[in-house]
């Protein structure tokens, strides 16, 4: 039955080669550390879904932010779960991205021909951190307020343009409703757009170039190297 339905779509859409290229592609023999990228991707999907759900009730204004978050946590069914997944997922994503990065460094997987994958990965790390920073303010509680006060204040030490950067980040001299809405706008529109773009390139390259094999401790003459290099 399912096969027939699949075939019906296959005849009209021809998606099978794409599925084969994405999911059934050949990869080198690897180990569990190679799942860290996929794990980060899974947490990213979790962040997108739970984040969308949170916007159903959250209101980014000084009057409403804290009360709407507490409404989600205490009064909406499973609200504590959705918010909890988003909250802990944020930390998990930073940790997993970091571990993924360590694996890539240790294996030297950032080298030719995968430099662009590495660059987009660095971009993704920056975007992930920016997500964490902007999202931290949104509950508008004491911790959020002072963490953002301190975090934005750091921008001031940048030479020459520091004071301007501070006002740009805060949308004024002090933290205010303007800060909250711009952080919210960044968090739900600007950063997700950047994230999806970079993830798209990153994933395309992973599929297009293929992933690197774990480096071997001692290169013996008999074994075939992964990349032919003429001396």
């Amino acid at each position, binding site marked *: 039955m399912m096969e027939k339905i699949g075939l019906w779509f296959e005849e009209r859409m021809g998606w099978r080669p794409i599925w084969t290229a994405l999911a059934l592609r050949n990869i080198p023999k690897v180990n569990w550390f190679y799942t860290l990228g996929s794990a980060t991707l899974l947490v990213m999907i*979790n962040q997108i*879904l739970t984040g969308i*759900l949170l916007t*159903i*009730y959250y209101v980014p204004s000084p009057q*409403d932010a804290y*009360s*709407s978050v*507490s*409404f989600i946590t205490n*009064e*909406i*069914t*499973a*609200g504590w*779960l*959705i918010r909890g997944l988003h909250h802990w997922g944020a930390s998990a994503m930073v940790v997993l991205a970091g571990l993924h990065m360590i694996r890539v460094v240790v294996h030297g997987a950032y080298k030719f021909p995968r430099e662009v994958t590495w660059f987009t990965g660095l971009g993704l790390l920056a975007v992930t951190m920016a997500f964490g920073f902007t999202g931290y303010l949104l509950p508008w509680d004491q911790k959020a307020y002072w963490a953002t006060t301190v975090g934005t204040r750091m921008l001031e030490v940048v030479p020459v343009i520091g004071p301007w950067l501070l006002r740009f980040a805060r949308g004024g001299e002090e933290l205010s409703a303007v800060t909250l809405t711009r952080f919210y706008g960044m968090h739900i529109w600007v950063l997700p757009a950047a994230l999806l773009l970079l993830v798209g390139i990153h994933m395309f390259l992973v599929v297009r170039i293929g992933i690197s094999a774990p480096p071997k401790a001692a290169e013996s003459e008999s074994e075939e190297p992964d990349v032919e290099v003429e001396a």
Partner: protein
Amino acid sequence: MAKMSRRTFLSRVTTTMVGGIGALMGIPTVAYLVSPAKARGGLGVDAIPLGPAAKVPVGEPTLFKAAIERKTGWVTQTEELAFYIFTEDGRNFTAMSNVCTHLGCRVRWVDGDEQFFCPCHAAVFNKNGTVASGPPPRALDQYEISVEDEQLFIVGKVEA
């Protein structure tokens, strides 16, 4: 049972796990989204004071307005409610909602015609709230009313 290939086994395990995670996430998601739909509109307060019973003329529905504090979500706001109070004998009172039972516009009592008119879709209700003409599916909703020390109080909704 035929021997299953490693590939088939892993693919089934993966599908099952994805399905499991989907259900684990999907059920709370639905609960989260439908959660506010549980709130059914009651009065929200014990009693709404309307004022002296003597202000209701015999035989003519009279509009009384009252403001109540109602909490929706995390916002408490003042909501203005209006009731048509009607009495035939000055002792027994009925309270009718001024909300048209068709699609919720506010009906208005017109003295000359002795009827309620809805401005939206030409609904007409009789003096006692029953439908005279137009699209409404039922008579105007009624409230329980009590008189204490010559003062009128709305104390609840009359369930149809």
